[in-house]
């Protein structure tokens, strides 16, 4: 089965508009489960090109305290993989926004990789990001994701040497998630000094059909402009959005912030 058209088409569209894709994150269950769809709508209306939905987990080891708190709130509301699928099905009734799931591996392991991939595909999910599944453990997942046409998004970090980047490319599809710095997710005042050299090093190693999106710490329009100028095909904003939702931002206020971020993705001549 081909990779879902929604994701590759979206990258083509933004590319033809001389933009990078803005990938916005929201934990399912934020600010409360009954309002998550409304907030996804706000992200989309503000200019998010692809949405990344967080699946809550008790032990999110790659997440900063803002997102950890969101995991906890979602779990307390009873959000789980099934409610996430239900929400995506609901979204799909009137939206073609590409959807990625960000989930730790244990919920996938619990349901079974095949079953998880099938349900993703049935619900209308376009790809899956698994922060604790490196390529060493990913062979069977990659087969299932391939079978169900899901993008297989793997990470590349400042610690990943060139040879390993090439191996990761063999497992990946859609895009690689370039981790801007050491540590967990989390908003940042300044752009990490590691990110631009990393992007410069990794970009030439990627096959033509594999995009690169930068995440971890991107908080301002200026951060986004800098990585887009350096050649990023996409930018991922998670904690900075989550922080605003946590602070009680209305959908309108959130959309305004997204608009500001989206402006940073436009390539100037």
């Amino acid at each position: 089965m081909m990779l879902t058209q929604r994701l590759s088409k979206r990258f083509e569209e933004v590319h033809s508009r001389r933009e990078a894709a803005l990938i916005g994150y929201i934990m399912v269950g934020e600010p409360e489960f009954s309002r998550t769809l409304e907030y996804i709508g706000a992200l989309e209306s503000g200019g998010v090109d692809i949405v990344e939905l967080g699946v809550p987990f008790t032990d999110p080891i790659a997440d900063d305290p803002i997102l950890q708190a969101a995991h906890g709130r979602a779990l307390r509301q009873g959000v789980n993989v099934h409610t996430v699928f239900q929400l995506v099905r609901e979204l799909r009734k009137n939206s073609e926004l590409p959807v990625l799931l960000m989930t730790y591996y244990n919920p996938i392991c619990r349901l079974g990789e095949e079953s998880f991939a099938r349900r993703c595909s049935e619900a209308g999910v376009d790809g899956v990001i698994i922060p604790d599944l490196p390529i060493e453990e990913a062979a069977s997942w990659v087969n299932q994701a391939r079978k169900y046409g899901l993008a297989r998004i793997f990470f590349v970090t400042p610690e990943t040497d060139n040879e390993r980047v090439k191996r990761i490319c063999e497992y990946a599809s859609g895009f690689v998630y370039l981790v801007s710095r050491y540590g967990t997710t989390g908003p940042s005042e300044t752009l990490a000094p590691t990110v631009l050299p990393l992007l410069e090093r990794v970009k030439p190693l990627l096959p033509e059909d594999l995009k690169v999106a930068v995440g971890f710490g991107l908080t301002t329009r200026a951060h986004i402009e800098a990585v887009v100028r350096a050649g990023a095909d996409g930018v991922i904003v998670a904690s900075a959005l989550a922080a605003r939702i946590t602070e009680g931002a209305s959908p309108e206020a959130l959309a305004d912030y997204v608009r500001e971020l989206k402006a940073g993705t436009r390539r100037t001549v």
Partner: protein
Amino acid sequence: MAAKIPAKPSTPRLSELPVDGHFGEFGGQFVPEILIPALKELERVYKEISVRFDFQSELKALRADYGGRPTPLYFAKRLTEYANGARIFLKREDLVHGGAHALNNALGQALLARAMGKRRVIAETGSGQHGVAVAMACAVLGLHAEIYMGARDIERQKANVQRIQLLGATVHPVTSGSQTLKDAINEALRDWATNVPTTYYLIGSAVGPHPYPMIVRDFQRVIGDELKGQLLRREQRLPDLVVACVGGGSNAIGTFYPFVNDEKVQFLGVESSGAAALCHGSIGVLHGAKTFVLQDEHGSIGETHSIAAGLDYPAVGPEHALYKKLGRAEYITVSDQEALEGFRLLARCEGILPSLEAAHAIYAGVQRAQRMKRDQIVVITLSGRGEKDLETVVQHDAHAALE
């Protein structure tokens, strides 16, 4: 004609595991990409350095002169009379410097950290014993130690927190999640991901991503190796049963592993009934390894409740997961109440205060010995001493008196 090279057997013996970082279907490296190069480097350095004569001789000397090894294998005469069955021996890991088996591993890994040029060492601790051991090992080797500890564990293991601080290490309270060992490991992993170029993560149990379960086992196997030699010299035979408590499972794997090819030696692992990943869990992934995990139907990790902070953990080392699946070891649970009974029994019969963790093994070992023949031998690993738990035991007695 050249002799044919026999084909390598398709299934390796248990003693040859892990293969490719896995114990059968268990183990592996389920961690963020940022940590993978560090794990590969650790494995490479460990394989190269740990077999070197200078490393082994320095470790051996530290264990002997600093740590107090070998620890005695003690024939518990009055406990045996009480049980009125098999003869009971205790492997006295409570007599290791610091008061528990934890130093065996901490010294080994601290030497590795120093060899890798990493002067900042981080660790998690539940009962505080591993934290104490890491603080000691880092002090004696001139390294800087920072210890993550759940706020709930800090509350109930205050004496160990003070010891860690007096030994020059920093304690970082962890207030996320259940505020116990599991959350301390989460926080240590986050720190490691942030500081991986400068920092060595010194895991305390046979858990986590490969190569940690292997490294911890190799540094803890001194328990089983010693007791095997001691019993052979004294009784000219192997034990019928070896017993150890299992939280993450480091003292148990250290006790069992040297006997894994001795098929007649039975293994009994004792979990806390409120934190029994092997007895009540299902296959999942936590802290980098596929293993048995306490979890709900959607894969959320369960909260645990044990009177012994060192057993209060919802997963278990992957090698135990395989031993369970293959039936090589038997795993049972002991309740808080029964552990307290084991505590009192050992105190009154033998004049030894066991840690509440080890008290689980004492209780189960005595129960089992009662049903065995007089010419049989049970060895229980007494993994730690009980001074750290006095407050918990006394409070418990006070509550019981009120009711």
